[in-house]
């Protein structure tokens, strides 16, 4: 087992190198170069050359790459081309927001998807099942930014919920970081919307897995022992059905990270996504470079965690 873990971690290294290489090249294929993109159209050749020199873009690519990698390894992602702030510092103040949004979104997606997936499987081919399955595809289809826009538009005038009216106004910049509960109020609505987007595939996989597991012999045995359905589901079925579901949750981390960009933008949350959008609008290529690198690293690490959790959840899995 230890050998598997070690090998798995070692395999991460070439992938990571590839990732840094791609990120590095990506911001250097900008037509006309980052320097002229930065200066705009009216720049003279001399100005471009000067900016290039300042940014070290006049060096050979290999040297640029190793310089960049060297500072990345020491935790320095460089400075913003526009504001000259340290990118590592900017990201460290922002990543918490994105992380929080992502974790809550994941939590809400499980909270919605797992029960519905289980019910859908137990009540297979009933009207309940059909509704749940259509709802799952609807969750995949409805764009989060639309839900968010509707929430902001209708939330301002109040959404009647029968017993109460739900009011929602998107936060202003000044309200941010006042207190934990204030922050939670800001995070929860976008997290639910982001979560809904992930719900569809988790719900569907939970359903198929539950159907599969419920046909197994050990479930029949448990049933024959006279265990109650709830106990069978909780103790026997769910634990086995959840293993593939864990994979898809792992696979959704990239979707989640991408989704935070959009929702942070709509709800004005000062996270990494908003940072990326600002950077793109200002053609700040060092920030783009840093954010893309960090997000890819997060994805790779989350894949690693999923692979490590596998054998813990399922003792049947043995890695040679």
């Amino acid at each position, binding site marked *: 087992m230890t050998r598997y873990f070690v090998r798995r971690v070692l395999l991460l290294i070439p992938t990571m190198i590839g990732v840094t290489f791609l990120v590095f090249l990506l911001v250097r294929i900008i037509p*006309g170069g980052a320097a002229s993109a930065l200066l705009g159209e009216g720049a003279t050749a001399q100005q471009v050359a000067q900016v290039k020199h300042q940014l070290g873009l006049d060096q050979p690519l290999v040297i640029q790459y190793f310089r960049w990698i060297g500072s990345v390894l020491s935790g320095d992602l460089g400075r913003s081309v526009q504001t000259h702030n340290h990118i590592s510092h900017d990201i460290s103040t922002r990543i918490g927001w994105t992380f929080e949004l992502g974790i809550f979104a994941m939590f809400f997606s499980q909270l919605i998807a797992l029960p519905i997936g289980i019910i859908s499987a137990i009540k297979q081919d009933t009207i309940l099942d059909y509704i749940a399955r259509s709802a799952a595809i609807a969750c995949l289809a409805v764009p989060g930014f639309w839900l968010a826009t509707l929430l902001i538009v209708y939330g301002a005038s109040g959404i009647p919920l029968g017993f109460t009216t739900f009011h929602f106004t998107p936060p202003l910049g000044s309200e941010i970081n006042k207190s934990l509960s204030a922050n939670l109020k800001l995070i929860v609505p976008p997290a639910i919307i982001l979560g809904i987007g992930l719900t569809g595939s988790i719900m569907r996989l939970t359903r198929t897995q539950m159907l599969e597991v419920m046909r197994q012999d050990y479930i029949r045995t448990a049933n024959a022992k006279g265990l109650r359905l709830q106990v069978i589901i909780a103790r026997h079925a769910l634990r086995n059905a959840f293993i593939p579901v864990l994979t898809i949750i792992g696979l959704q981390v990239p979707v989640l990270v991408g989704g935070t*960009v959009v929702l942070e933008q709509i709800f004005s949350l000062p996270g990494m996504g908003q940072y990326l959008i600002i950077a*793109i609008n200002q053609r700040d290529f060092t920030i783009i470079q840093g954010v893309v690198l960090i997000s890819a690293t997060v994805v790779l690490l989350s894949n690693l965690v999923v692979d490590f959790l596998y054998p813990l959840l399922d003792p049947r899995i043995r890695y040679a």
Partner: protein
Amino acid sequence: MRRVDKRGGTGNEGAVTTVSEERTLHGAGELERRAEQTAVRWGRGLLRFLRTKPLGTIGAVIILAIVVLAIFAPVFAPYGFDHRVLKDKLLTPSLKHPMGTDLLGRDVLSRIIYGARVSAFVGFGSVLISTVTATLIGTVSGYFGGKVDTIVQRLVDILLAFPAFILLLAIVAAFGTPTSAIHLGPFSFDPAQQRAGQVVFAIGLLFVAPASRVIRGAALSVRNNLYVEGARTVGASDLRILTRYVLPNVAPTIIVYATLQLGYAILAEATLAFLAFGIPDPVPSWGLMLSGLARARIRQDPWLAFWPGLAISLAVFGFNMLGDALRDVLDPRLRGSR
């Protein structure tokens, strides 16, 4: 599936007969009869699909509607997509403007109809790029296996490490915003057209890695079949095996995956447009109609926020429904994936 049985059969004899050889074995009349049979079989298959897959049929109808609207937009749209009547701005839905008008007094229904063109163009364009490239990479990687496969799959790993949407934003940012028209021989492309090309290319590029992984998996399972071994035994070249045996058998997987990707491509374009990185106004992209300036005015006329979102949802819903149904019919192996 039927194709597999017919070609692969149980013995070697089926493996080596191909269409061109059949042509010499049977006369032209025989071929016509076969074509007719195939047509009848397809017809029956279609009827069965309509009967057993109601949700898939709904999806197909939605997609058909979008494609028809996109092609015949000028016929269906009551006004032009940039026909401005400023005194009629921000009207609520009425008989004259069934979906109301926007900030510039443009008919929203017409813009939604023309918007189908943008979605269809970006969707089909990008998925064409991704499918062709991914098929090439996936079948070669899966069929040859060994070192080729290892190298290709490690490269795919690298691409899959990036959150798709962030990579998409970065690619679009790297392209930069086109500001002036470019001329290529007799053609000239205005900035909006260049942007459309960039978006199609970026989304297509992004979809290559996941699609190639799925197609590789299918090719991997095909290559161990007896009929492939049979073909190799009688001396068929790799190219021949790839095109005559592997490709037809991974085709169902490709079709299903491409259908699902079409939905995501439309969603990706809409999201880009929403963030104002897509094709600029006045081209009516559904995502753009929900963004920026439109959003600021939406409070005055909430309908403005409703229609474009509904259009995007329906389109993505349609492709997902159809893709799911096709998956059940064509490729049971993919069930539960995604």
